[in-house]
């Protein structure tokens, strides 16, 4: 009886469905794609997953808290553009630009949260607005500052090397390159997991997402928690933006559009409920890993690239279905246990 209860409790965890899907997809590509079987490939997949996963952790937390952020994708580009152009225009140390950009992103996150809480308009609409504003401003400001739509070369400005070490360094282990973003990703996931499970703030996040009115009634600071979550997303978007900037040096002002959905997909595949109140950090991380694995696995398998998006869609649907199935099995067992 107790072992059964244990397995039920295990199956009811949000990340289990995603974990099963990840293992299935992993084995699938091991079989069909010989090039997938090397450690180099695994680390390339982990890198790809980390660039999506870092922001997805924040987006996952926010979704558990019952809100969306559609501005997260372009904010990554905004973060890079603010830092790069400020420093280029004024010729100052890049650390100043990076901190300024951080303040700016946190400001946008705060504004998102504050507007949602103040007006009661769904976050879907508010952040859709921010999304368009940032997208337009990225282009408009870049054009004004540099006269083109690509940000300038900043690799000769002071601070480039030290910032590069923090955000976009890599080292070689054998034949594989391991990027620092993978470690940052793991760290952010661990931190999010700790906050969600071990702290009072974590309880608040679940409470404001699951039942905001009851949460407010029992004294949970709903407004503060939600604004904090929006700011967490913008912090992680800033972080991903810094990585992109210091790895690629020049940014195209139109980039980042569409990635907001990848973050949401990673969270949903990882077992986060779209309606809030349910999910966890490990699930979101596995969701991002599934995305990285699928998008590159298709390439490692050498399949016709025109079908790329179709393959991706099928894989993601399968992941969601497995997820749903596992959850259903778990809940039906739980109810039979109750009898």
């Amino acid at each position, binding site marked *: 009886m107790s072992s059964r209860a244990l397995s039920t409790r295990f199956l009811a965890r949000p990340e289990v469905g995603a974990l099963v899907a990840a293992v299935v997809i992993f084995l699938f590509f091991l079989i069909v794609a010989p090039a997938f079987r090397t450690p180099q490939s695994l680390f390339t997949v982990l890198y790809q997953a980390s660039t999506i996963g870092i922001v997805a952790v924040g987006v996952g937390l926010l979704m558990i808290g019952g809100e969306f952020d559609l501005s997260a994708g372009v904010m990554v580009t905004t973060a890079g553009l603010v830092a790069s152009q400020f420093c280029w225009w004024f010729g100052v140390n890049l650390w100043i630009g990076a901190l300024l950009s951080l303040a700016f992103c946190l400001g946008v996150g705060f504004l998102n949260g504050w507007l949602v809480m103040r007006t009661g308009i769904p976050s879907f609409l508010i952040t859709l607005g921010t999304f368009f504003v940032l997208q337009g401003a990225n282009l408009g400001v870049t054009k004004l500052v540099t006269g083109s739509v690509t940000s300038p070369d900043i690799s000769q400005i002071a601070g480039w090397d030290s910032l590069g070490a923090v955000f976009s360094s890599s080292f070689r282990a054998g034949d594989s390159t391991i990027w620092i973003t993978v470690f940052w990703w793991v760290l952010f996931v661990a931190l999010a997991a700790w906050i969600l499970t071990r702290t009072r703030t974590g309880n608040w996040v679940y409470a404001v997402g699951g039942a905001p009115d009851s949460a407010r009634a029992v004294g949970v600071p709903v407004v503060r928690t939600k604004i904090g979550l929006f700011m967490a997303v913008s912090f992680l978007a800033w972080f991903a933006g810094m990585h992109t900037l210091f790895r*690629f040096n020049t940014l195209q002002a139109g980039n980042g559009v569409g990635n907001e959905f990848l973050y949401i997909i990673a969270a949903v595949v990882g077992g986060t409920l779209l309606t809030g109140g349910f999910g966890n950090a490990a699930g979101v991380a596995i969701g991002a890993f599934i995305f990285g694995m699928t998008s590159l696995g298709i390439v490692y398998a050498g399949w016709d690239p025109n079908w790329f998006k179709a393959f991706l869609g099928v894989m993601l649907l399968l992941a969601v279905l497995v997820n749903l199935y596992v959850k259903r099995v778990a809940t039906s067992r739980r109810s039979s246990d109750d009898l």
Partner: protein
Amino acid sequence: MNATRTRGVRLLALATVVALGVTACSGGGREKTDESDSGGGNAPGASGYTIAFVTHETPGDAFWDKVKAGAEQAAKDEGVILKYSNDPDAGKQAQLIQSAVDSKVSGIATTLVTPDALAGSVKAATAAKIPVVGLNAGIEQYKQLGALMYFGSDDTVAGESAGERIAAAGAKHPLCVIHQQGSVSLEARCAGVKGKVPGTENIQVNGADDAAVTSTIQAKLAQDKTIDYVITLNSQVALDTIKAQEQASSTAKVATFDLDAQVAQQVQDGKIEFSIDQQPYAQGYLAVSSLYLYLKNGNDIGGGRAVLTGPSFVDKANIATILPFVKNNTR
């Protein structure tokens, strides 16, 4: 609520303090020169002509910046009032042409990327006796639509000449990177390459995400070690490819369509073999100038044929001449 606000204020204050603290200026930024304009020109509208310039530009593409810069310079040089508008959606572009007709401009320059969708509006223009010239796309159809002249490159020809060039260098299995799904002109370029090197393989990447482009190409290079050339179709993807190639320790050579300052630098450094330039600045400049000459003097440019602005190869041999123009954002 208050706590968050105070914390935010404190953070901003901290950033400001840090900014003020590190006052030492750093090199490598903007070169502070007098912002002298490219000079001269007539007063806007001195010639009395108004030219509408309609493109299918998706906002944020560096390429169209140069087309626009060329058109603006021509308008300035010839005292023409330029009305630039753009929409990537075929139906909306047709409306833009229609509204130019309705406002009775002196001439229309437009890209003809979706000839069927634009045919109606172009007919309306010719019916209203407004001269139309085509640019950038539509080389096959411009005459049939009733456009007088055409300035642009032929994507298939450009792809073929790139293919010829790498075939001569011994390419057997090049990879052609398509960064936008379902784009006719990008597919045509890769098809042109394939026409000359049958072993050409296409790959699809998400052009809006540099990290994804890099890891996808890296994965492809790891999957297939026989790839000896990578042909990219815009400059940012070319730069991403160099990163991917370093990671995958691949010896494949890189060649790209389009040109910008970073690509020019890489050509000079030998990381990129060559760039195939279709000279967007010239497309914009010539489209406006040809209308000006037609209106002013009845001239017909091109002898009844399309005027090709490309493919023009930029490689180690001529990069020294071209680099200053690239830095000026006109080439």
